[in-house]
């Protein structure tokens, strides 16, 4: 039995080595046009950001929020369709998404600015409902909306409304988070069951003809972060677009480490697993709006997991894998069936916009 896994032939190994070297290089943005794949959170998105945006602005480490003199800053835009879906709406996402990017930098969210791009003809009741949703979500997350802007575009130029939020937060003194801090031996936690937001949106669009009791997991993650911040916590990422798999790939690349995921340990709600099975989608690539992946030192992982499970919305938090030295830059899954495979970045997805 190949208990050590498939052994590649020497030439195969050399070719795989060449491929990995090529993949480790900073991608160059050479596409002639923007396609939907550039927005899907996978390789094309990475090429756009690392190949065009980061070099233009001299950014080296890409994180959810930048921290300068203890102040964290981040921004996000929301173009979800439909505007309302089971478990939330665009307004609620716009607050929680930005608040969560601050939280991932270990920053307590303080205030948001809000920009609304409205389509001519938008029903005022729809707008009013979203403004109320924004106010309520901000109150729940403990942030104030302190500045803003509105624009109206002609009918047909926006799906009802787009929302952009910018957030500032205060870096918590306990936080020492960075992808570069992740090292072999670290344990990997997820803060709850994965894939709910993306699945809820897909079903809400109604073109799949499926009906299931799945609601978006949108929520502020600051209380969960607050519960586990400390010395042994190396890095946090919220698993939004591209899902948990994309986060793991980003960190494996950024830290130059290998990541092993034990498929059987990943918490997935049965309805999400069922929908994913029918659609041929892996829930590890499906978006979340209220889940993060935490990398914790081995001695801190158990306490962090126990603390997480005490937080509302994180009851199903679990340890799903660990960091290894090999193979660098790559995520490998131990399947529940007993085999192993690569869990790669998404190439581009055929799915509707989800945040």
């Amino acid at each position: 039995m190949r208990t050590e896994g498939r052994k590649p032939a020497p030439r195969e190994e050399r070719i795989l080595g060449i491929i990995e070297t090529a993949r480790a290089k900073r991608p160059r943005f050479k596409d002639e046009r923007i396609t939907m794949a550039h927005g899907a959170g996978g390789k094309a998105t990475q090429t756009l950001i690392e190949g065009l945006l980061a070099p233009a602005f001299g950014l080296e480490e890409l994180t959810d929020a930048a921290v300068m003199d203890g102040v964290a800053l981040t921004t996000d835009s929301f173009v979800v369709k439909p505007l309302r879906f089971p478990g939330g709406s665009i307004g609620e996402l716009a607050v929680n998404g930005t608040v969560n990017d601050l939280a991932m930098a270990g920053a307590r969210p303080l205030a948001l600015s809000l920009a609304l791009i409205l389509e001519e003809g938008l029903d005022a009741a729809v707008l009013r409902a979203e403004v109320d949703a924004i106010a309520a979500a901000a109150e729940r997350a403990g942030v104030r909306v302190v500045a803003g802007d509105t624009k109206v575009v002609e009918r047909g130029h926006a799906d009802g409304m787009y929302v952009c939020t910018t957030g500032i937060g205060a870096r918590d003194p306990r936080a020492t988070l960075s992808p570069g801090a992740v090292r072999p031996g670290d344990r990997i936690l997820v803060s709850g069951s994965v894939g709910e937001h993306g699945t809820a949106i897909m079903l809400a669009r109604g073109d799949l003809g499926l009906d299931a009791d799945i609601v978006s997991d949108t929520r502020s993650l600051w209380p969960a972060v607050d519960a586990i911040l400390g010395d042994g916590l190396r890095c946090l990422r919220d698993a939004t677009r591209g899902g948990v798999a994309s986060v793991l790939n980003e960190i494996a690349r950024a830290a130059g480490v290998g990541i092993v995921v034990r498929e059987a340990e990943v918490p997935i709600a049965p309805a999400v697993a069922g929908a994913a099975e029918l659609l041929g989608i892996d829930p590890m690539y499906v978006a979340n709006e209220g889940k993060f992946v935490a990398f914790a030192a081995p001695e801190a992982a158990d306490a962090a997991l126990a603390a997480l499970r005490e937080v509302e919305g994180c009851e199903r938090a679990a340890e799903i894998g660990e960091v290894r030295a090999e193979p660098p830059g790559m995520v490998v899954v131990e399947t529940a069936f007993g085999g192993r495979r690569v869990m790669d970045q998404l190439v581009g997805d055929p799915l509707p916009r989800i945040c």
Partner: protein
Amino acid sequence: MRFVDEFRDGALGRKVAAQILGVVEPGRHYKVMEVCGGHTHSIYRYGVDDLLPENVELVHGPGCPVCVIPMGRVDDGIAIAREPGVIFTCFGDMLRVPGSAGTLLDAKAQGADVRMVYSPLDALRIARAEPDREVVFFAIGFETTAPSTALTLMRARAEGLRNFSCMCNHVTIVPPLRALLDSPDLRLDGFIGPGHVSTVVGARPFEFIPADYGRPVVIAGFEPLDILQAIHMILAQLAADRCEVENQYTRVVPYDGNPAALRAMAEVFELRPHFEWRGLGFISQSALRLADAYADLDAERRFAVPGVRVADPKACQCGEVLKGVIKPWECKVFGTACTPEHAIGTCMVSPEGACAAYYNYGRFVTSSGGPSL
């Protein structure tokens, strides 16, 4: 998940693996081809390979319907998609398959109205909702998906929809298998037969493989235990000097197929005299087109398509990969010029393609060279 998890039970998998070990001769090397791309995907997705003895090798066959579409057909599809007023619909995988000048996704970014659908009936729904537009469905697939296209066309006819048509790229499974078996460079010991194609055509059409070519065939399901069990059944046949068609997937596949589906296909389609397969060249009577009675719903007759044959890119060795003559990584452009994000060959595009499955799931070694982890 009930009725799914049972087929992915690792403990049972190890039991079957032990049984496999019991029927292989230690000194002999076995090459088993899984014909269907769905099997290729499952093998990598669950790491089925890892449970097999060293001397049992799986070879990935030509059964991925996206992978076998030649560039010229993609170009024809894009030409239709660019016609004013057309809404062009197809399955998601097809959007990223390169033609001679870009993919359907590129055409979409340049303004063509290309929409992904999950079923041909979705295309029909669009046609009903947008009576002023011409809705074209780009149909692909083996006998697995052909009946749903046939039923959709029958329904379009019954409803009298005039703005719906179909560009038919349906292919049939037996001719390419025969071409493969006739290929002199092929060394295979047995076949894992395509499960979902067989739900329609049954197991009987594969009887020529043991009869004419002396190779066992086991029709298999797509869960990892199905595949392992099918491998065991093939190896057990070889060990006992038996050679026949067996059906592992009895919970879904009747030996004689699905007569209603076959009737629908017979009403709507007829065999093309020949069809070009990517990498395999022209194979006679290997594909379907709309029968004359449905000519008015045939997009190829409704629109002027270039119909130009485009040679496969020189560097691309999809044909050899599809025949199982070389492994994906042995292709000259694998992983360097040809990657899932910029595919040259179709085997790299569909998640069921041998190259994409290997690139996405199978590609790992440690930098020190040994087996990983």
